[in-house]
């Protein structure tokens, strides 16, 4: 048991009677930036004493399949934007391992609160990728039911969702759903979001309430054009210490490490040991969104260096080296990814625009007289064009 674990166990024991009791003992934590890694960029499996991971060949192959498919969906979406089928797309390129590793660490009853880039987590939760494309095409603002897959709506304002996640976790506590078979929440955000007041407030609320939540920060090094140095002078995972809960830094391009670290943190949260901050150290290999031009603010050499740490290639090398997969497996995954990509592409191109009057729906739980009058007026206005066209067509004959 490490010092950190011991502190945690002590905390948990003290709080056996009331999971909402405030934390009193400060967490002990190393001050050096240790990067937890279980799979090197070269595809070599390494062990970490705090994060033993027993994982079958089939499970590693399943992770590889996830990684390849979500990258393919991302490529398709970028292409669809270039073809004018999407208004914009926020690429996850380079962050697949952070998202698949953490996403596969969740239980079905856990709740995830994403940003607008968690396409890999959405995949893990079983959300149809087309729902994501709806948003970026401008057909909806998301529009999925968060309870259907325990995957909340995408949140575009930076950091807002960390407070929603924390409040949800406080609800879990009030439901008595902490402890054996408990539930927990994971809140996603990026390095830029750590400068937001809401994220810092979420840390405070989670800490003083000992809420069952994991804060999963994908530090992709860039907030649009601003490098990490513009957001922080301390490693982000160390921020947790000041708020009174543990923080860890994991190799965000290592799907196995992300899986193991998130599993442990989620389990601690479910058991009533409170929040954890995970900093997944990764890299945004593409642009911030399709409207962005990263060549204006960063050197291509940096991207080239990170390409050597690619999150997918290392898993492939590991599977090949350890003979846990036949070459035919990789062909099958490629074929499946291509099929998913094809389906997504065709369905996106065929996606109809919503009915104009639908913009009046769901403003409140019931229409007000004003909304109903505006809808009726708008519908009559639209109909007047149809009538005019009919008259014009009649005149022409």
């Amino acid at each position, binding site marked *: 048991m490490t010092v950190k674990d011991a502190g945690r166990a002590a905390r948990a024991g003290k709080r056996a009677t009331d999971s909402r009791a405030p934390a009193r003992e400060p967490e002990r934590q190393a001050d050096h930036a240790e990067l937890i890694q279980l799979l090197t960029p070269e595809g070599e499996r390494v062990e970490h004493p705090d994060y033993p991971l027993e994982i079958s060949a089939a499970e590693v192959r399943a992770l590889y399949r996830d990684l390849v498919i979500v990258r393919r969906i991302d490529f398709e979406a970028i292409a669809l934007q270039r073809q004018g089928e999407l208004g914009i797309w926020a690429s996850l390129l380079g962050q697949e391992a952070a998202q698949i590793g953490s996403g596969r660490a969740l239980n079905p009853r856990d709740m995830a609160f994403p940003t607008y880039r968690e396409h890999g987590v959405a995949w893990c939760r079983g959300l149809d990728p087309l729902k994501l494309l709806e948003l970026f095409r401008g057909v909806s*603002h*998301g529009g999925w039911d968060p309870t259907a897959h325990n995957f909340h709506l995408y949140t575009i304002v930076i950091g807002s969702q960390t407070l929603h996640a924390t409040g949800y976790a406080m609800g879990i506590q009030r439901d008595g759903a902490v402890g054996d078979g408990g539930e927990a929440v994971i809140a996603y955000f990026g390095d830029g979001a750590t400068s937001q007041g809401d994220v810092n407030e979420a840390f405070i609320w989670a800490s003083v309430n000992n809420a069952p939540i994991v804060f999963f920060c994908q530090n992709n090094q860039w907030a649009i054009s601003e490098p990490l140095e513009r957001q922080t002078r301390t490693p982000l995972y160390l921020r947790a210490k000041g708020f009174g809960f543990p923080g860890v830094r994991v190799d965000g391009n290592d799907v196995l490490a992300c899986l193991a670290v998130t599993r442990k943190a989620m389990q601690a949260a479910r058991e009533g040991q409170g929040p954890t901050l995970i900093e997944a150290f990764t890299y945004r290999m593409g642009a911030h969104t399709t409207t962005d031009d990263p060549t204006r603010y960063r050197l291509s050499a940096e991207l080239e260096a990170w390409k050597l740490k690619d999150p997918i290639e290392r898993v492939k090398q590991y599977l090949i080296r350890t003979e846990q997969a036949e070459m035919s497996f990789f062909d099958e995954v490629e074929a499946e990814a291509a099929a998913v990509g094809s389906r997504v592409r065709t369905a996106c191109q065929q996606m109809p625009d919503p009915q104009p009057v639908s913009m009046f729906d769901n403003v409140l739980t019931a229409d007000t007289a004003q909304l109903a009058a505006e809808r009726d007026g708008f519908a009559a206005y639209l109909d007047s064009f149809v009538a005019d066209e009919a008259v014009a067509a009649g005149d022409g004959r």
Partner: protein
Amino acid sequence: MTTLTLSRALNEGLRKALEANAKALIMGEDVGKLGGVFRVTDGLQKDFGEARVIDTPLAESGIIGTAIGLALRGYRPICEIQFDGFIFPAFDQIVSQLAKMRYRSRGAVKLPIVIRVPFGGGIGAVEHHSESPEALFAHTPGLRVVSCGDPADAYTMIQQAASSDDPVLFFEPKRRYWDKAEVDTEGGLAAALPMDKARVLADGTDVTLLCYGPMVRTCVEAAVAAAGDGKSLEVIDLRSLAPLDTETIFASVRKTGRCVVVHEAVVTGGLGAEIAAQVTQECFYSLEAPVLRVGAYSTPYPPSRLEDHYLPDLDRILDAVDRSFGY
């Protein structure tokens, strides 16, 4: 019937709301042991426990943001923002998240959250403690905005707000917290006027006087004074600012032909401007005079030694009534 202050009526209403629904929560700064700085939540934590009456950290965005999360989990938070001028750290969570999340989800989620805001001036407070920001929220689709003007409405409307499945901004007239009136705490809510309906407080034939919150009492007093001058004022407590009960407003203005809107908030871009536009559009041929507005000047809230000059009072209301007759 019981005689209650407006503050106490809210307290009794909140107690009823907590009793009526086990998912109802109260959260805010100092709402627990202290019972809130105006004692509106006095004794509730003692009776309902710390898990349901929550003293939060001192950060307004956090209060509303976590309330949204609790609502997503099935809870019904009733939040207190300690003073009007402190709502702005939460403005983003209210406007960008709370007001839009149901729409964003195409109706999949509901957010039954009440945000109580003591508002308005007249208590000699320091800066940021006397403001009237209601128009900012009435301008935001996805929110209901209401204000109570007397203890009886305070008692019923806070319960109606708590049982609404929509987000409700609940503006409480802080200088009227100590006003007393008879309140029926025995009868249920069934007979109560719905929260989104205006109430005609005094029938009149010459001028329609529209008001809400702290200006309700002032307008009733103005009507009594005007009656002495032979003028008959119809006083309407709007109660709901979003949506507006335009049916009641238009019916009155069509009868009187004159309309004066009174609020403490800055006149420019305020509720009065919206009401004036709608009345002009819908009651144009009934109007004997333009709709007039009485409210605060286009300045920040002044130091409290000047607030009696800044806030609308009986004389400024009667002056507007006289001007309305001048057309």
